[in-house]
């Protein structure tokens, strides 16, 4: 494990200042700022994007009034949300009630810290990043359970239990799909996984492993949608059945934290998707020198975010296209379809790598 954050400010302090130890402290502050910037900075963009995508799918325009094409609408909404009174109903378990949104917001930042957004843009380079991410995912579930329980509301509790069942089930195949990627790339470190995909577009795992890569990508998208608790798998919220699920009783900042969690989770999941299957921060080279040189001139950070936002757009298309299954259909989908399929995928992946059937 290298807690490095290779950056020029830290390096400069280390080299020229009389106290080189200061570099570590500066690096920590930089890391916190960077993760917060990605997480909290993206949320208004994503909310705006979601509104626009959903509007265009439904032949509407979406927000149009505040600012150019309504770009300031989310700023206004976030401001409004932050200034609302934080209020808890009678009979809640106060400590747990306020702890839940905090825990829920902490978890996705862990994931963001592990993700390399560019060659030089990573907070922690863990050798065991993939198992760590699986562990962190459990924390998000914990927050939902806690929030639902502490709210002292039948609907919230029901939602929390449902979503607990859902996320525990889907975590199994999520882990298996991640193992699949770890197996074919031979490392659990996200940087190494990206390194195995260097080269042209056809060296990305989605194409490099014939057919399996694509199937794996589709399954990853499907399972991570369920992991994110997003529609069509938003059993935890299910407005029509459970009012708003586990965050029914939350207002103001506490609600905003749950909301923010959802959107930071999307970034985390799409970042993982692009690292596992789309080559991470690598430029989509196509093997023609002149074109590749232009593509290489674009910074890696831009490529990473382009891929992340493409995947986010896909998640949004899923959300506004498909219907929510019933809870029993959801569970049988996981245990009878996704889990067997991901195990088969894992086995086939082993065969393919052992036989060297890799492009």
């Amino acid at each position, binding site marked *: 494990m290298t807690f490095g954050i290779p950056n020029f400010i830290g390096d400069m302090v280390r080299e020229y200042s009389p106290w080189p130890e200061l570099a570590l402290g500066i690096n920590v502050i930089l890391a916190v700022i960077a993760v917060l910037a990605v997480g909290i900075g993206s949320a208004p963009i994503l909310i705006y994007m979601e509104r626009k*995508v959903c*509007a*265009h*799918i*439904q*032949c*509407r*325009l979406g927000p*149009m009034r505040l600012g150019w094409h309504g770009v300031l609408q989310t700023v206004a909404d976030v401001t409004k949300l932050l200034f609302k009174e934080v209020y808890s109903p009678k009979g809640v378990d106060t400590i747990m009630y306020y702890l839940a949104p905090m825990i829920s917001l902490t978890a996705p930042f862990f994931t963001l810290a592990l993700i390399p957004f560019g060659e030089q843009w990573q907070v922690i380079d863990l050798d065991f990043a993939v198992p760590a991410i699986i562990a962190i995912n459990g924390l998000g579930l914990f927050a939902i359970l806690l929030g639902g329980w502490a709210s002292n509301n039948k609907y919230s509790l029901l939602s929390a239990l449902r979503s607990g069942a859902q996320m525990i089930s889907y975590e199994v195949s999520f882990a298996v799909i991640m193992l699949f990627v770890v197996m074919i790339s031979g490392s659990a470190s996200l940087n190494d996984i990206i390194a195995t995909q260097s080269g042209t577009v056809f060296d990305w795992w989605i194409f490099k492993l014939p057919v399996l890569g694509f199937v794996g990508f589709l399954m990853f998208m499907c399972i991570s949608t369920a992991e994110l608790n997003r529609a069509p798998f938003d059993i935890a919220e299910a407005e029509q059945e459970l009012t708003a699920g586990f965050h029914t009783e939350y207002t103001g900042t506490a609600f905003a934290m749950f909301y923010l969690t959802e959107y930071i989770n999307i970034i985390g999941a799409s970042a993982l998707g692009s690292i596992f299957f789309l080559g991470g921060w690598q430029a989509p080279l196509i093997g023609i020198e002149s074109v590749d040189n232009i593509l290489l001139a674009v910074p890696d950070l831009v490529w990473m975010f382009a891929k992340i936002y493409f995947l986010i757009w896909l998640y949004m*298309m899923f959300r*506004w*296209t*498909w219907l929510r299954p019933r809870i029993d259909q959801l569970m049988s989908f996981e245990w*009878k*379809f996704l889990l067997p399929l991901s195990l088969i995928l894992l086995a086939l992946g082993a065969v393919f790598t052992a036989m060297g059937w890799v492009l």
Partner: protein
Amino acid sequence: MMTASKYFHAMITGPISLLKGMTVTLRYFFNPGRIVTEQYPENKATLKMHDRFRGRVELIHNEENLHACTACGICEKTCPNNSINVLSTKNIAGKKVLGKYLYRMDTCTQCGFCVESCPFGCLRMAHDFEMSSADKQTFNMTLNKTEGQG
């Protein structure tokens, strides 16, 4: 119970139907021309209501400000809300003609029954909709422009 063949069948047809749904939304997404939202106060000048839009009731007048109402009173009887009063009068020849066509927009539900029922087709639903007013009297209208005509 789900049989094995059903299970594998669903495995094939499920994704296909999902993709079908996806093509629909993708088509909408990449086709801004399909958007139906009206940017109302801004596009006031170009706004055109649909043919079937039902605003208030209107007595059709031709270019010479003449209407075809015979004061038969069928629309008055049809109106479920009593929003119409047809006051007839007699012209010089002693024939029954329309005196005043009283219409009360505040009780009218824009159901369109009066338009349907008129045997001479002299009513229609107008397309104006900016009718709000603070004065209740503005909703009591006389629809005919000339009195005793016919």
